[in-house]
Each structure stands twice: as structure tokens, then as C-alpha cells.
């Protein structure tokens, strides 16, 4: 069973979102997602300053198998992308919730974070998907 940290929020499309407490949120893909993707060999991250709509395709994770879009969990402006992923994309496989984060966003509506899935709901969504 894949890891689903209780202190993060989630989307049905397998992104996780962390509240950094400084008005920014960090976004990555879940352990379940990296496992399903397989070995990751390339990541295209959004540029800092880019404005994102909620659910907009804003990054691409390519594994040995296929390319997968990453969607913005909420609307906002990209603050920073994880530069480490350019040379070591496999960091997402080895550390999906820590070193393998994809981008930081300053949300347009700070309340949108609370509307994302909590860990238990996400876990249930993954289980339902596997049935």
C-alpha cells in the first residue's frame, strides 16, 4: 500500500498539496502516482510567474512508459519550480513527498486549499479506482 501523509491535501488526479504556512503551497504527485507511472525520466515544470487556472495542465511527468499531465490543484501564480528535477527526475520516485516536489504556488483564493481532499478521502478515491 502506498504512503498517504495525513498532513497533506490531495486531488483526484493524484497531486498532493502542502500548506507552507507563508501564503504559498507546494505541489507534487503522490506515492501512488509515482508507483503507477514507473521510472520517471523527464519532468517539465511550469515557469515561475506563470498564472494557473484550477485544473489546468501545467507540468508533465514522463516515465519510461508514458507522459502524464500534472494539473494545478487550485488557481494561483507559480512561485518556484523544483530545479532538481531537470537533472534527477527520478527524485519523484525516491522521494515523492519531500525532495520530489514539483512547484510552489501562491493561491488566488487562500480558502481553496481547505476544499481539497483530505488524506482519508484520497485514500478512499485510490481504493475505488483500483476496484
Amino acid at each position: 500500500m502506498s504512503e498517504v501523509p495525513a498532513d497533506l491535501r490531495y486531488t483526484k488526479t493524484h497531486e498532493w498539496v502542502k500548506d507552507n504556512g507563508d501564503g504559498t503551497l507546494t505541489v507534487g504527485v503522490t506515492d501512488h502516482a509515482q508507483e503507477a507511472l514507473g521510472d520517471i525520466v523527464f519532468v517539465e515544470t511550469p515557469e515561475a510567474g506563470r498564472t494557473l487556472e484550477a485544473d489546468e495542465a501545467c507540468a508533465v511527468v514522463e516515465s519510461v512508459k508514458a507522459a502524464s499531465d500534472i494539473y494545478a490543484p487550485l488557481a494561483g501564480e507559480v512561485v518556484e519550480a523544483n530545479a532538481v528535477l531537470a537533472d534527477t527526475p527520478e527524485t519523484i520516485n525516491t522521494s515523492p513527498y519531500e525532495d520530489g516536489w514539483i512547484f510552489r504556488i501562491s493561491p488566488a483564493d487562500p480558502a481553496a486549499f481547505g476544499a481539497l481532499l483530505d488524506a482519508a478521502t484520497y485514500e478512499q478515491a485510490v481504493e475505488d479506482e483500483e476496484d
Partner: protein
Amino acid sequence: MGLRTPLFSEHERLGARIVAFGGWDMPLHYGSQLEEHHAVRRAAGMFDVSHMQPVDIHGAGAEAYLRHLLANDVAKLKAPGKALYTCMLNAAGGVVDDLIVYARAPGRYRAVVNAATADKDLDWMQRHAADFEVQIDRRSDLAMIAVQGPQARDKALPLLPADIHDQAGQLKPFFAAESTAWFVGRTGYTGEDGFEIMLPAEDAPGVWSALHEAGVQPCGLGARDTLRLEAGMNLYGQDMDEETGPLESGLGWTVAWEPADRDFIGRDALRRLRDSGALRSFVGLVLTGRGVIRSHQKVLFEGQAAGEITSGGFSPTLERSIALARVQAGIADHCEVEIRGKAVPARIVQPPFVRHGKARIAL
């Protein structure tokens, strides 16, 4: 649920991720496709290829039959055990399937065809057998394990039965040996040395676990695909199919035009295409920009659409993206691949990309 090979429970025990492939439930990987790929390039890996279909072709008319059925010429197989790679064409010069055929003895051949096309192939083979004294037997009773890599033969040889061990040890590349029940070819689909072992289904799990204990890495279809792509080997249904034949798929070398009076299926259509001068080229690409090439992406030359990717992916050995592509004749050196709306620069090269663990193209 799909069909299961005699090794299915081994795959489950090893924690394989199972996927549907050509009607079969097959292992995609056992944890890391990249590690499996590297194991084959650097040491030894094994693949369950029992979904592929051995077909025995016997009879006084077997040679004449296969010389009509196949675009390559089995008359080239002078020595017993010699293997030949060939396309089986339709009348329009498209590919029904690609296959390996082994000459076993006068009037005795064994072909190995693809899993997804096996029913269609057998039907096609039977339909063209009427005028020949030949018997065609599908050998669904056999399992098949490919052991590949620089250490593959050393690891596999001690596990072969005594009655085939010595012969198998002396095989030259692209030859096969056989005993009553086993058939061992020094062939493969990875660009590395190794064996493809056909054996009775009930013997397969024991051999598989013994190979595993000997340190041979189980490998899934994922690694099989990146290995064959690096080796510049075609995949049926992707690089060629019933519409696109060997001359536009880099397989011109497998078409035996001589002797000129050999009447094989598809010959007239191929000749017309060859003489038309309208042939597209089949090339290798190495992406110089960032990203991963995938099949069906567009190839651009000087800003114009110039062809299509037939197989693309990430090369673990070269650590960049490579591809096979069908492009208009005359484009050379540099092109671009359209990846998600962006034109990404690539270099045109001659496959293979990798053979025997080493890069075969300048990076």
C-alpha cells in the same frame, strides 16, 4: 482476464505489475524497468516470452511452401539449426507478421510468431498451404524463456538438460540446437548475446526459479521494449503493419529478391513500390532537445511535416530519448519532433543505437 503463461504464478510471486498484452496477462516490470534494462546490458536478464507462438512446419513440401510464404528465402538456410528473420507479407506487400524461422532438418522448420497476431498468422499460413505437401502445428504446449545479456549464456548453460547442454554451448549466433523436448536458439530481441529457450510448459517454472537463483534478473515487457528500441529492432504493429511493408520499415535487407524467379507473396507489390521511387525512409532519431519522443508524434524538417515517429522512448543506456521514424526521402542530419506542440530538435542517425552494451552512435 487474459491468457496466462505457465510462468504466471512466478510473476505474481515476484511482485510483477501485470498488464494486458496481445490477449495475455504479462509482466510489465518487477519493480524498476530501468534496473531490468541495465541488468540485460551489463549482466543477465530473463523474459517470459511464452505468449509468443512456436509453429512447426513439416513435410516434403515445407521448403517450397515457406519460399512462397515468406519474403526472405529459407533456401539460404543451408546448415541445420540456422535461423532467419523474415516478414510474412500480404499480396499488397504489407506485413501480416514478422517472425524467425529455424531450419531443423530437411523438410522440418520451426517459426516463432507474435502473440497478438498468432491466430491471424495461423489462419493465413493454413490458407496458403493447400497447394503444398505440408503440415502446420501450433505448439501451444511449449513455454519460452529468453535469457539475455553478456552473462546470459554462462548462467543458463548449467541449467540445460544433459542431452542439449553441449550442443547449446557450441552454438554460433543465430543458430539453434534441440533435444527431444527442448529447443535452444542463440537469438534474442535485445541486442545482447543470449538464448531463447523453448521447453515443455511443465519444466518452465523450475528453470525460471533456477535462473533467478543464479542471479538472472526477471525482466518485463517494459524493459523488453526499451532494449529492442536501443537495438534498432522493429516491433510489429508499431514500426510496420498490414499497410506499411518492409521497404519503408528498415527491413529491405530481409527481402530476398534473388533468385528472380522465386514467387513469394507480396513480391509484385514490393517491386512496384520499389520501382515507383516513392519510398519513404526509415531512420533513427536522437533527441538533442529536452523531452521524450513517443510514437505517432510528428517529424518536422525545415518547419514542414516530414514524417511520423513509429517507436519512441527513453534510452536508459544513452540517457536520452531515441526513436524510429518513417520520413520522406531525402531528409538528413537534423530534424525536429513535435512534442506537445513544441518543435524539439533531433539528430537523424542510422540504427542500431546500442549493441552489446555499447553506444553505436556518436552522442
